[in-house]
């Protein structure tokens, strides 16, 4: 089936089965590999993207359910000022270890800071708990979210 998606502000046409998860449409049909595969079962958050600004797990989001919603991925989140601040904080605080989970972490953190510009520790816990980091960079993720929201690290 043919689908027209809006991804990072651009219109993209793809020809895939309607049950194909958005993750594999991005990665295999569009060669946008920034969004990662970790579990395929909404358990790790590595595949987090935004649909109209709301963080979702692309691995369990069939492409036919995306409709006209705007898709934002790690490749495009930097054009949003909040996303850009989060990326900057991630670099300077040196959050990544292997880095594989960090696209998903950045997407989750950007959604959090967009909704709550100065999140509390409890807000951060709630927003980030679905994103696993096997390398356990959690201390630095918290610091980076605070730095990106202008709070004391």
């Amino acid at each position, binding site marked *: 089936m043919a689908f027209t998606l809006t991804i990072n502000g651009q219109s993209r046409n793809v020809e895939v089965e309607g049950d194909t998860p958005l993750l594999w449409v991005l*990665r295999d049909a569009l060669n946008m590999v*920034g969004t990662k595969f970790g579990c395929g079962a909404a*358990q*790790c958050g590595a595949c987090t993207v935004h649909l109209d600004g709301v963080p979702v797990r692309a691995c369990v989001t069939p492409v036919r359910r995306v409709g006209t919603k705007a898709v934002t991925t790690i490749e495009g989140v930097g054009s949003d000022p909040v996303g850009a601040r989060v990326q900057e904080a991630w670099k300077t605080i*040196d959050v990544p270890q*292997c880095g594989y989970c960090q*696209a998903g972490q950045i997407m989750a953190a950007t959604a959090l800071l967009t909704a709550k510009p100065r999140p509390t520790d409890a807000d951060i816990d709630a927003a980030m708990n679905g994103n*696993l980091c096997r390398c*356990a960079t959690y201390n630095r993720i918290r610091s980076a979210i605070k730095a990106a929201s202008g709070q004391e690290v």
Partner: protein
Amino acid sequence: MDKRLASPSRRLFLQTSAAVGGGLLLSFNLPAAGRAAEAAAPSRLNAFVRIARDGTVTIAAKRAEIGQGMKTTLPMLIAEELDVDWAQVRIEQAPVDNAVYGDQWAGGSMSTPQEWEPTRRVGAVARALLIAAAAQRWGLPAAGLVTEPGVVIDPAGKRRLAYGELVEAAAKLPVPDPQALTLKDPARYRIIGKAHPQSDNPAIVTGQPLYGLDVRLPGMLYATFLKAPVFGARVDRVDLAPALAVKGVRAAFVVEGGTALDGLLPGVAVVADSWWTARKGRQALEVVWTDHPASGQSSVAMAARAAELARQAPQRVMRQEGNVETALAGAAKVVEAAYHYPFLAHATLEPQNCTAAWKDGKVEIWAPAQDPEEGRGLVARTLGVAPGDVTIHLTRSGGGFGRRLMNDYMVEAAWIARQAGAPTQLIWSREDDTRHDFYRPAGWHNLTAGLDAQGALVAWRSHAVSFGEGDKFVRAAEVDASQFPARAVANHLQTVSTLPLAVPTGWLRAPGNNAFGWVFQSFIDELAHASGQDPVAFRRRLLGEPRALGKPGGWDNLDTGRMRGVLDRAAEMAGWGRAVAKGTGLGIAAHFSHLGYVAVVIEASVGDDGTPVVHKAWAAVDVGRQILNPSGAEQQVQGSVLDAIGSTLRQKITLENGAVVEGNFGDYPLLRFAEAPPVEVAFVLSDHPPTGLGEPAYPPTPPALCNALFAATGKRIRTLPIGDQLA
């Protein structure tokens, strides 16, 4: 265009390239800088540096990057001695070629101790060449010239020549003997010892392709590989038609495979135009597997058999000092305990994957791998090609933890791509990854200790039940009889009995130590409490006077003074002895592994539902006199501590009917954000060469946690994971 001309002076290459920097580049490598260097360090001396006319320095990162930061840290060592501005440095992953680069594997926390000396010398050689070129230009002796980042300066301080202006001349000079060069005084370091974010961060945070899964080739297909749930079982019957009927599936075939658990195993490959489609094709398959003797294996049966063995005389003595039986008979107090830890998976967040492309009987491979050279050998042997016909490109790895020291997924990809007749990316599902790992072996330890009337430890007897046959252990199941308190207690006996095992096992972060540290440091805590002594004071007493317990340089050469140093520091950081709320406890443990000393204190309590809550962790670390990159160093310690907390709380791999039960993160749970405590890290500097940090902070963490929970609740955890034992 890239043209290299070997110069007569050893292995100095003059390289011209239109692609990089647009000018003449100096590059050189030092495959072996003489016997002296080889004697000093176990690795061979190697590096690869290019300097462009505009002063840009490109440094090849020779080791695999798995999240341990070596792609940044090793170039820092070169840049320091070369004396350049870090901002001018570009980093490239080196091609896999051990003949040129020496060891390129990443494991055992070995990169730092192996590279510390030779890698700095590579930078020093480059600097000496540039100085010699300036000396020639000015007609001055080289000895008087100095450098500042990127420039050579004359003795009067008047004339300056940028490195870029000297490259051409430097490339024609003979390479000096690296061992004859004086390395920089650490007091003058501008790069080493300063926190440097990872060089790949800009690419990571913007989602640029870096990992194995990100490889894209023209015409590339995607593959899944279905293997038997029972390790090594073969395909008996399969109808491939339902898979081939799925739109987009290009091929489906049986791979015969062999019997070696670390080689190519039998299975069914499905290749399609997207991974999702390949997965659909695979789900349409119904495979009947052959009966396999290993299908009788189960965790429950192993535990029962281990308990029987524990009651019998041990099969082998690993270490014996003094007379443990006499000492136990004369002891004022005898304490006994049995400990058990489970199989564990690595669960790298990037599942195992590999991309392979064949052309004219040669294969090109893109892989996240920790030991690519081993992989080359495995691919060559299995597919019947010469090692020279296997080219490997290392990608960044989405986690390693020892999993990617094995190359099973690499040989699978090579095989499937050849049969599919197209470049193919093999991707394992999360369930494949959990069920076809090389597991940290389970084990059982039966301990007996004797204390005299003054509370001194006088006897220590340990009977370990591990996996193996005869006097051979299966991979990573070796019982290391040098573990503390061996050699610190007069009467000591370490024995072992083994069970056969037909499950693939392998190295997981701090192999052996990740289990023994928990067993021994937990039992030492039991002894402290049993004799009414403070756990820190009891450990200090046990460590005694500062002394080395092994041979210099040996992996078992525990220095009790360094251990005491981290123990005291961790206790101080955590405010050991302070009053804590009722239901909260502090626990401590200290362990030596991979040449590093780490003591960890944990503060923890138990929630109303019986869930352990870790409030905070403190880690004191002694890995020598110099921390190479403090940012990466802190990350490795925090990551190891939190990794160990996660596995201790909930992780286990269970075998039933010869197969692994757990599949995804729902039943193999990793530590989550909200339960991760802050980890405060301090480095205790000691006058020893720097050593690695990927592993040594793991082993003391599980016992520190269990000891804290004992202090909080009075309940001793002797079986891992903790799970709901405190509910």
